[in-house]
């Protein structure tokens, strides 16, 4: 299943917050890693957690999972702080570091240990290995694995207890294109079945392929949370006309940015509306081109601004 076409659909009723972060802060000495961060993540969709390197994503996730202590603020998963969940590893599947395995232990034994720890039946080990296409390498030592294979093993560990929530830190690290396609399809399917997926990344291209919505943070602070398509939904349209000044007047004060003496870019007016205005005023247009702003541009603009939006 491809994520791209599916991403546009309505997620409708599945809006109950499963992950909640409220007023979360953490300092390391003089460095503010996370600064009064708040957001919620709902079930039934893939939520990307985006920010440049050092933005505080991993620290936030570690506090969410009880691995690091916040200076202030609260977090909850499925309604409770992670530390208070009766069987946390059965509720939340996590991938924090695909390399987190004893290098001399085989992949199967690594998962057997985790299964014992989580009270998961042995057959799940084989199922999880099959899910990530590692059955053939199950008896190889993890130390012999490539980065991509380790990442797959990490995903198998996350899926072992068949959790309803997945929290994945940079899950596509080391995956080849086929692996990324598989991951996209898998997470899409997981969310469609009502699961909650929270995926962090510093790569916008990766998140744009995986996520339905995105939470952007920068320097530990909340920047925005919106559907991934919404990041580029602003209208900018290049207009070229031999009667450019009359068109400017007809646009009735809409913001314009001159390109040359016969063209300008119109801000925040859809191209269709500009065309209708030109037609009503009998203004000849030589060009009417919506400008597509790249996600990278949006990301850089968002994360370069310190303040929340």
């Amino acid at each position: 299943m491809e994520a791209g076409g599916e991403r546009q659909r309505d997620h409708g009723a599945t809006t109950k917050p499963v992950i909640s972060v409220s007023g979360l802060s953490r300092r390391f000495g003089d460095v503010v890693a996370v600064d009064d961060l708040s957001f919620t993540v709902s079930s039934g969709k893939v939520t990307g957690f985006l920010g440049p390197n050092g933005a505080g994503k991993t620290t936030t996730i570690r506090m969410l999972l009880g691995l690091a202590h916040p200076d202030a603020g609260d977090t909850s998963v499925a309604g409770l702080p992670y530390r208070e969940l009766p069987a946390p590893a059965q509720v939340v599947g996590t991938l924090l570091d695909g390399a987190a395995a004893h290098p001399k232990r085989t992949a199967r034994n690594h998962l057997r240990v985790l299964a014992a720890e989580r009270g998961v039946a042995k057959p799940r080990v084989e199922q999880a290995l099959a899910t990530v296409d590692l059955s053939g390498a199950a008896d190889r030592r993890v130390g012999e694995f490539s980065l991509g294979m380790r990442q797959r093993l990490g995903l198998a560990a996350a899926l072992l207890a068949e959790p309803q929530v997945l929290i994945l830190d940079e899950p596509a690290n080391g995956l080849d294109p086929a692996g990324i396609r598989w991951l996209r399809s898998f997470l899409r399917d997981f969310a469609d079945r009502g699961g909650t997926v929270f995926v962090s990344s510093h790569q916008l291209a990766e998140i744009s392929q995986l996520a339905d919505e995105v939470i952007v943070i920068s320097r530990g602070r909340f920047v925005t949370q919106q559907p991934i398509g919404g990041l580029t939904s602003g209208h900018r349209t290049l207009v070229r006309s031999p009667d450019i000044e009359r068109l400017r007047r007809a646009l009735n004060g809409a913001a314009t940015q001159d390109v040359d003496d016969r063209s300008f870019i119109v801000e925040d007016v859809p191209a269709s509306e500009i065309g209708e205005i030109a037609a009503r005023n009998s203004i000849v247009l030589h060009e009417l081109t919506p400008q597509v702003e790249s996600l990278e541009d949006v990301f850089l603009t968002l994360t370069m601004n310190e303040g929340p939006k």
Partner: protein
Amino acid sequence: MMHRSLRAELLKLVTTKATYGLILGAAAVVALTVASTIASSKSASLSGALHDQVFFLLTSINVGLFSLILGMRVVTDEYRNRTIVHSFLSDPGRNRTLAAKALASALAASVIAVASLIVMIAIALPLASAKGGTLALEGSDASAFGGFLLSNALWAVIGVGVGATIRHQVAAIVGGLVWVLVIENLGSGFLGDMGSYLPGQAAYALGNALDTAAALQPPAAATVMAIYALFAWLLGIAVTRVRDVD
């Protein structure tokens, strides 16, 4: 829940070559120690109970180090390979994980102790006999061997506590060895009779391997060593609970 953690810890031990390496290493050191000690002994001194022999004291010292290292590795290996995260995600309170590690390490250290005793007996009796000695297993050996087993289990628990407190594998192991082999020896000299309350001295007394007037009696030695083990373990828990996990 505790049984899950214990099962996982035991599974970690049996699926890691280092565990077998420690068992075999301890057995090899015991074999060399016993063989070389008997070879350099006069036949007249090779008589009586096994636990009265010098090689049993040396076995107590050497094997205790292996058990201590095992306990340290059970924790520090996990930090080194970053697998501790998996344990703490299943047990966010972290107490259960460290309790399971202490129990599993104590069991594994008992295996090291039993293997070492078997090797010691298997080598000592025929070698001593070949040299004209009259060594024999006696009733009093049973309690000494029991004490030896218990001291190794407690060494492993101390190792878990030290490993959880220090986390850095090399620092923990080097620090542990320096303590047992250097500081304790110096300390016991300076402290006089009080030196018998140091953990190493208590451990050797627990196996009834010390032949000095100041040596603690086995029940007192067991109590002293258990206090050290409990203190180290509780310190490990206290430190682990408040620390962030990378």
